């Protein structure tokens, strides 16, 4: 059978404009649920980026007491050098610490003015063999009790907390996205069912004169998929917009930690593709089930 393309597009177009309020409601629901999905995907990519960025940086800092004797410092240095778990360690003297300090507080001259280099503590920067936070913490604890050591700081701890938080947030978002995706598939189902009902006389005639089920089906499934993809398009724009906002925010605050949350276009592209595919899938499933149930009834 020749598939009449012009017929299919005409019917699909008619269906879409016949009930504009329902069409718009469906498109918006898809858009909202896929925006949630998109945000969840962006956050997960951000977290992944964060983890790769700090994977090699899971170091800890052994702060030395200001009044520690040089023998004590040497003892700590030896202990670090002897530990099989330490890959690398480096002594940071007061001048170097001050340089870092200047860099960190460069926007607050009053803080800088109040501090002299010799008031700052010295420290060892330690890179462990196994860059796992739990291992690093256990390792750090070994040095905490050595004489002359004031404290041990773990850079990774903050990363981990941030990590846990964003992961929970993105999982909640993903759950919400899935729930609302299910809602939009159901709305899609009802939207197409309404379209089928509006055209029940045509469908009855089509079946009587011998139109194939696929011929009846295609305009409705196309309608559902167009609604899904248009909704996905809207959500893609929303995600791009969100990404721009994050990028601008990062540019103004100079908060480098979240840099990985601003995705570049090569990272956004798969997110956009995922959203469009999800939109098409919602349309396909929602309308497919509606038409199948209608035709089999």
């Amino acid at each position, binding site marked *: 059978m020749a598939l009449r393309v012009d017929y299919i597009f005409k019917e699909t177009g008619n269906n879409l404009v016949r009930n504009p309020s329902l069409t718009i409601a469906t498109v918006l629901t898809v858009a909202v649920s896929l925006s949630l999905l998109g945000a969840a995907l962006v956050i997960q990519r951000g977290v992944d980026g964060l983890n790769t960025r700090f994977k090699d940086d899971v170091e800890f800092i052994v702060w030395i007491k200001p009044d520690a004797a040089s023998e004590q410092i040497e003892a700590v240095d030896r202990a670090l050098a002897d530990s099989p778990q330490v890959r690398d360690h480096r002594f940071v003297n007061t001048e170097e610490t001050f340089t870092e300090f200047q860099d960190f507080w460069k926007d607050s001259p009053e803080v800088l003015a109040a501090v002299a280099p010799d008031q700052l503590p010295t420290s060892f920067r330690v890179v462990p063999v196994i860059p796992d936070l739990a291992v690093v913490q256990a390792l750090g604890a070994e040095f905490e009790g050595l004489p002359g050591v004031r404290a041990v700081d773990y850079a990774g701890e903050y990363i981990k907390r941030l990590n846990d938080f964003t992961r929970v947030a993105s999982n909640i978002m993903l759950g919400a996205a899935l729930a609302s995706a299910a809602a939009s598939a159901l709305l899609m189902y009802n939207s197409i069912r309404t379209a089928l009902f509006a055209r029940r006389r045509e469908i009855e*005639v089509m079946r009587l*004169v011998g139109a194939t089920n696929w011929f009846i089906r295609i305009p409705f499934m196309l309608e559902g998929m167009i609604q899904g993809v248009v909704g996905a398009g809207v959500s893609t724009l929303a995600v791009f917009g969100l990404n721009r906002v994050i990028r601008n925010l990062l540019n103004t605050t100079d908060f480098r930690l979240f840099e990985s949350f601003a995705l570049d276009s090569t990272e956004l592209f798969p997110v956009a593709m995922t959203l469009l595919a999800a939109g098409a899938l919602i349309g396909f499933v929602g309308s497919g089930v509606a038409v199948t149930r209608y035709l089999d009834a």
Partner: protein
Amino acid sequence: MIKLENVTKEYPGSSVALRNASADIDKGEFVFLVGPSGSGKSTFLRLLNKQEDPDEGRIFVAGKDISKLSSWKVPMLRRNIGCVFQDFKLLPNRTVAENISFALEVIGRPRHVIKNQVPAICDLVGLGDKVDKYPEQLSGGEQQRVSIARAFVNRPLILLADEPTGNLDPQTAIGIMRLLDRINKTGTTVVMATHDRGIVDTMRRRVIELSDAVIVRDQARGVYE
């Protein structure tokens, strides 16, 4: 052309619609199905284009056992069977020409075929000057002509008519019967369910009478009772 072998059809929850019915209808025959409401006439017709499936027995259309027809082949069967109804089943938002071309469009007929066939069939049914009218602008008889045109435009082997004159006055009904007769003379097998005693008695065609789901009479050149 049509053959029923001991066909029984029951609707769940209600009584038997057709019991052990056998009939053999040749190509080009004109057959009236008569009997009171609920005697099984509509079920008889609905079984022929596989709107219903029999519970028992076999039905042959054009030599094929349609009870064994897989569902994807049903559309092909229906393309050979035109249907006319008491309530016309026209699409109100389409003109006469559009209603008829719809039947060809949806089975994928090319545009040039539709362009040729539609005006020709409109002339045949006597609606050549009404092609751009909408169903509501037509009389009942004219609407039934459109519905017959739609059923016949694809030149089916069989035309099934379920009380086609049921909503029409006797004068208009005669016009419709003339049209069905002309279609029958082109070689199309016509099976028509009817209550209309006058029509059956005038036409003197084969009559199959149903009573309480059973074929009680099958008579060539018969009358209503």
